[in-house]
């Protein structure tokens, strides 16, 4: 037991050090999952304790950069959870059609899979020309991958299956060419996208979004940080705007639950109150 407590002290101090030295703030991440990633990072560094890891990361920016990338990287798929995109297409899009211009925020876009899914969906629904997408993440490398739009060919079979199940109207292969050892998604899909380094932990609101999709990002946050992020989404959404969460996330325990209504309950799509 004593051993456990020492480790928890060390982790707190390590996260504090990462924040002060590199301005990455994991202090309010869900303890169990950040601890697990830190243990993996420590094993890769070949270090025995988190205190030794703190020493290493404070004095070795290159090692710290690798660890920070590891702590912030996420992997997704195109049209992951096809039911979510089907609900967007069938239930949310009819509302979005009534707006002359649209702003959509993909918060925590990682390598851009979700962004490309929405760009394709909006093109097929004829909304693309009136839409501006904001794609944000704290991992610079992931943002660069998102902006390139190249994915390994071995992932395409799963993407294609998801696309069909999500109600895709064409063939996914219409949107990419093969080259550079991967599937290169058409750059016109990213013409109306602003990529930006943005942290849900420390940064401020965007304005007047009609749709925010933030899936499986807040599962890594503790409760107070989740409240901050959901507050940010509430303030960034236009009245009547939509918020999409991951399939196992919900606003039940959120401090801001009353600002939202369930719009498509089973797909975790919420609508900001109009009042």
């Amino acid at each position, binding site marked *: 037991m004593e051993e*456990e407590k020492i480790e928890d002290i060390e982790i707190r101090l390590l996260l504090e050090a990462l924040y002060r030295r590199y301005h990455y703030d994991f202090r309010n991440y*869900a303890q*169990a*999952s950040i601890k*697990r990633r830190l243990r993996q990072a420590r094993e890769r560094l070949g270090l025995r304790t988190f205190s030794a890891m703190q020493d290493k990361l404070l004095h070795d920016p290159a090692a710290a950069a690798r660890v920070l990338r590891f702590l912030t990287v996420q992997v997704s798929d195109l049209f992951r959870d096809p039911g979510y995109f089907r609900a967007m297409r069938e239930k949310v899009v009819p509302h979005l059609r009534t707006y002359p211009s649209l702003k959509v925020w993909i918060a925590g876009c990682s390598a851009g899979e979700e962004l490309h899914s929405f760009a394709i969906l909006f093109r097929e629904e004829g909304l693309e020309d009136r839409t501006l997408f904001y794609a944000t993440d704290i991992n610079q490398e992931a943002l660069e991958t998102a902006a390139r739009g190249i994915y390994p060919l071995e992932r395409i079979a799963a993407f294609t299956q998801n696309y069909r199940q999500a109600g895709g109207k064409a063939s996914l292969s219409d949107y990419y060419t093969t080259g550079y050892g991967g599937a290169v998604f058409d750059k016109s899909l990213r013409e109306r996208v602003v990529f930006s380094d943005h942290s849900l932990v420390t940064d401020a609101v965007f304005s007047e979004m009609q749709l925010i999709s933030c899936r499986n990002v807040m*599962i*890594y946050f503790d409760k107070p940080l*989740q409240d901050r992020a959901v507050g940010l989404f509430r303030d960034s959404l236009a009245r009547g705007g939509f918020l999409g969460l991951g399939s*196992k996330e919900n606003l039940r*325990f959120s401090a801001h639950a009353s600002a939202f209504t369930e719009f498509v309950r089973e797909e975790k799509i919420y609508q900001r109150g109009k009042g």
Partner: protein
Amino acid sequence: MIAAEARAVAIGASAGAIQALLQILPVLPADYPLPVLVVVHLPPGRRSELVTLFAAKCKLRVAEGEDKDPIAPGTVTFAPPDYHMLVEAGGTVSLSRDEAVFFSRPSIDVLFESAADAYGPGLVGVVLTGANEDGARGLVAVAEAGGVTIVQDPATAYARAMPEAALAKCRQAQVLSIKDIAAALLEVGQP
């Protein structure tokens, strides 16, 4: 068995899981005082039928874990497909989509290691039938935290690789038949 200290039960199962769990979970009474957390390896991308199946057979409440759900006594919580399920020290569920462990998400190791952190000697870890090595490392974490470790007798398992791997890493674990595992869980739930 250190019955007085038990605070939670964590179970991991892979190939043959449903049949094995059907001999354990329905045995537990409605007033069972411990939370029961379960990882079953499932193919990703499919909706889990586990809750429907076991809710019909169990006296306990059966649910699929959602992010930040409070972990409640007398409730069986299954890890949702395609997520790791972890336990926070405050007694809530955390989910993650970190990479698969032994090609599995959810992973038994991930649940056991976090539950061992959260419950220490109050955790009972059970590794059942399966055809891979998930759970072995996690069971070691349970033992190191002072918890109770139980492995299904490989000779009685539908697939013996997983219990064998767990025993190879965690030699002090009790080796029990399914029926005896159910009895042991009833016993740790005694006041």
